[in-house]
């Protein structure tokens, strides 16, 4: 029993509720949000080290033993993602303090963000499939409000799509839960894994697995991403950054858990399908990043490419590729947040959304310009930065499996990602400066600080990969040997 692992879930939710009482006192809201997220980072680092030293940490809510009660399970995979989530949220909120207007701040934006973080953390940590559904809903309900905040025709139109598609996906999720409970009689993930192994994943169970794949693919933007570019385009910058960095990752995490822990047996069917979907996602994503001129659209399609790329790691399903996927997920959370923030800042400075109309920003904002350059290299996976290691490991795994088409398309997508951003870089950041009175002349310091920190983090994660590798290896070890997870939950 370790009560600490429930903190990433209840701490943000508790503070979110407290903040509702301080609706008008923006200063108190900011201080509490800031300190909560900072505290979360500290707790998560402590927990991550504890998981490394003492093995998987489990908490049975209310002392009801698994599989009867709800279990919270913190393994290295979950903790790495929870830690990265709290860092991303912390930095995005610092950005938000100076960029959100008072109207937003009085419309419960901080409580909602905290609720969303609570839901995300809960989804990562829970060891119970129904609880996963609940945490998904907590996260989604908060995101429904966050996406509509501010109003406006375009925003409301896109948010209706977002809400409808997610409600539909949730309904499928619920149907899947009913089916799996009907066939196996349990919802505890470890117990499910045990029972699936006992009865040998038959055709019926594989069908249920595919139903879950559809559900999580909808949430993760794997192939079924048609709703994503529109929805991620409309929220205000710091919120869009958190959406892009975090929300799809929850779906990806669920796919990884599902198909390494519960349904790992029929790899010929499920993992091959995931691989095909991932390749198709990458290809369509590449069309998207090349085809649009709207900055926000390009960014959204970048999210889609990386979703496909991470799932190639699951397709290969070797220790290396899973290590790569875990590492790449962490990298991707940081770098996507930075990408969204930077694009948002460009739009903030210029008031334009198409990169054709923006020129030569680097003359006025040298630091910002070079930061964009670093971000671009990291996103494409150039060696000293954090994108490289994940891509390398996933590539190694794919070679071991002999999936040469996948590896070709995967690495070609890196070039295309580089191209899509290089276009923006050469035109909008470099190039002749045009003086425009409407452009803002300064970026507020508190907007620049989080972006620079993200830039440093991607550098640290790349150069200091040695420090992170033991944790990543630990995560991949649990993913490849599900019995470690099962034993930790069922036979403590």
């Amino acid at each position, binding site marked *: 029993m370790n009560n600490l692992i429930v903190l990433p879930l209840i701490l943000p*939710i508790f503070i979110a509720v407290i903040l*509702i009482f301080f609706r008008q006192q923006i200063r108190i809201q900011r201080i509490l949000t800031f300190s909560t997220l900072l505290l979360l980072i500290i707790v998560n680092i402590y927990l991550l080290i504890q998981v490394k030293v003492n093995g998987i940490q489990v908490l049975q809510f209310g002392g009801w033993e698994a599989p009867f009660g709800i279990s919270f399970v913190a393994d290295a995979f979950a903790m790495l993602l929870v830690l990265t989530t709290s860092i991303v949220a912390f930095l995005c909120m610092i950005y938000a303090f100076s960029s959100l207007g008072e109207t937003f701040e009085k419309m419960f934006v901080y409580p909602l963000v905290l609720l969303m973080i609570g839901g995300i953390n809960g989804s990562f940590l829970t060891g119970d499939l129904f609880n996963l559904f609940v945490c998904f809903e907590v996260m989604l309900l908060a995101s429904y409000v966050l996406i509509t905040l501010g109003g406006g025709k375009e925003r409301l139109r896109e948010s209706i799509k977002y809400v409808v598609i997610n409600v539909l996906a949730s309904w499928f999720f619920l149907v899947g839960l009913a089916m799996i409970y009907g066939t196996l009689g349990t919802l505890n993930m470890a117990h499910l894994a045990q029972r699936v192994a006992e009865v040998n994943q038959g055709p019926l169970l594989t069908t249920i697995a595919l139903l879950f794949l559809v559900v999580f693919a909808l949430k993760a933007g794997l192939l079924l991403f048609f709703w994503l570019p529109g929805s991620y385009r409309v929220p205000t910058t710091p919120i869009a950054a958190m959406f892009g960095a975090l929300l799809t990752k929850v779906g990806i995490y669920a796919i990884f858990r599902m198909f390494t822990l519960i349904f790992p047996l029929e790899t010929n069917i499920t993992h091959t399908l995931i691989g095909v979907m991932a390749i198709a996602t990458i290809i369509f994503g590449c069309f998207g990043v090349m085809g649009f001129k709207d900055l926000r659209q390009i960014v959204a399609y970048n999210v889609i490419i990386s979703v496909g790329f991470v799932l190639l790691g699951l397709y290969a399903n070797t220790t290396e590729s899973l290590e790569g996927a875990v590492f790449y997920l962490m990298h991707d959370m940081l770098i996507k947040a930075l990408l969204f923030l930077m694009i948002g800042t460009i739009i903030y400075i210029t008031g334009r959304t198409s990169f054709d109309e923006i020129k030569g920003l680097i003359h006025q904002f040298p630091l910002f310009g070079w930061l964009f350059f670093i971000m671009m290299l990291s996103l494409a996976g150039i060696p000293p930065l954090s994108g490289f290691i994940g891509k390398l490991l996933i590539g190694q795994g794919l070679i071991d499996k002999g999936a040469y088409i996948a590896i070709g398309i995967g690495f070609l997508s890196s070039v295309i990602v580089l191209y899509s951003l290089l276009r923006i870089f050469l035109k909008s950041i470099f190039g002749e400066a045009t003086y425009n009175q409407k452009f803002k002349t300064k970026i507020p310091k508190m907007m620049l600080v989080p972006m620079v920190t993200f830039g440093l983090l991607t550098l640290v994660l790349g150069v200091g990969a040695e420090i992170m590798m033991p944790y990543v290896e630990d995560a991949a070890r649990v993913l490849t040997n599900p019995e470690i997870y099962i034993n930790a939950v069922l036979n403590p």
Partner: protein
Amino acid sequence: MKINDLILRTVVQFVVFIVLTIAIYLFFAGHYTPGGGFVAGLVLASAVVMLYISFDTDTVRKGLPLDFKIVAAIGVTLALLSGILPMLFGQPFLKMSSMNIQFPLIGEKTLATVMIFELGVALTVVGVVMTIILSISEGSDD
């Protein structure tokens, strides 16, 4: 347009108390039998909705000056606190305990900390249901 709703108003004045009694019954019944905080909250909310339907908004607001968003927040706080408290005593999150107490008149009853949790749930349900219904019926004046 003026509607003659004398009968409705008179009936509601009595029925509200019956509904409230049912809500309280359901709330306490929920420990071992069907009922509980969620259902009790819904019934409570239906009583308030009935008042809003039969009387006008201002009258009800005068008699029941509550911001239902705050009610919901108090509810969630209570429920969370009942979960967090056991952690301070080295018990797992959400661990519930109970004790038997001899009451005058009604005899021995079991008091459980799950009551606090259920009360939180009930308040949350009332707050959320009322916020939804009022914001739909009122339009956009916050």
